[in-house]
């Protein structure tokens, strides 16, 4: 891939922008369209572009498949943890308003937390799906 200088330069310029946009979609989801699901996919898209240009081995050096699997489970667990945290503070499962003294702040905090969990899960699941498709050799 070293000979395609235009592709390399453009992708090096674009990949950070795509990743920042993914984070914007993630954490600005309360004010504008978006949320964990969309952010996860956009983040993975940046990674797939990197893989297409620099090869699977370089990408797996950045995020090894094993780390992706662990993070996928961690995202779901983060979601569930917020549910149980609400339970231990006296509310129902996933009733966020008990998390913080102010009702609105508690709801917002809970939503941001579970959206983060969803985002992590979606991004790493999509990434490991891509790895397992791309890592197979043609027979």
């Amino acid at each position, binding site marked *: 891939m070293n000979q395609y200088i235009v592709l390399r330069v453009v992708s090096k310029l674009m990949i950070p922008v795509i990743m920042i946009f993914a984070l914007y979609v993630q954490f600005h989801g309360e004010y504008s*369209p978006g*949320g964990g699901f*969309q952010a996860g996919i956009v983040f993975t898209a940046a990674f797939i572009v990197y893989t297409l240009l620099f090869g699977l081995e370089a990408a797996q050096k950045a995020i090894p498949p094993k780390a992706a699997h662990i993070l996928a489970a961690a995202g779901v667990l983060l979601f*569930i943890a917020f549910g149980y945290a609400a339970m231990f503070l006296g509310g129902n499962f996933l009733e966020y308003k008990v998390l913080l003294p102010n009702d609105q702040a508690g709801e*917002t905090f809970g939503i941001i937390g579970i959206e983060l969990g969803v985002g992590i899960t979606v991004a790493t699941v999509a990434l490991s*799906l891509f*790895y397992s498709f791309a890592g197979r050799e043609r027979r």
Partner: protein
Amino acid sequence: MTFLVVVGIAIVRVRNLLAVTMLTGIYSLLVAMLFVLLDAVDVALTEAAVGAGLLVILMLATISLTTRKEKVHATRQSLMALVVVTITGAALVYATLDMPRFGDPEAPAHVHLSPRFTQESPTEIGIPNMVTSVLASYRGMDTLGEAVVIFAAAVGVLLVLGTGTVRRRRDPEGEKSGEASEQS
């Protein structure tokens, strides 16, 4: 809408799977534009990212693993199938006649829970984007199920296809045979 129909027919007719994959991406983008026109920006973002981005990449990966041409089977055109499809389609079209008009404020979907969500959620949750507050708070359990389904899908694919870890090829026998052939 017309473009959607044209692309849909093209997807069915074209035999080159690479072209079909590209057309699927175009179809997703068109659907996303339709969603934007209907003010469903959240759904449009998802459709554009998943349908036009990730899905096409995964299909391309599959095609590169399998084959690029669709096998053409010479099947008999069954008259019975045509009759069934026509009757079902007619029934569906007939059912749409009963639906309320688009944007009708008296529609059942707009008088039951929607007023509560649209009027109470800004004060109750304190978040301007109602889609997020409905998704994550009122319907939190659904979203949890969604996340678990995605995770389960990944587990299934990983079990079937393997993890895709890149292994350096260290095949001692292969190297030896290569050397042997060079020497000879």
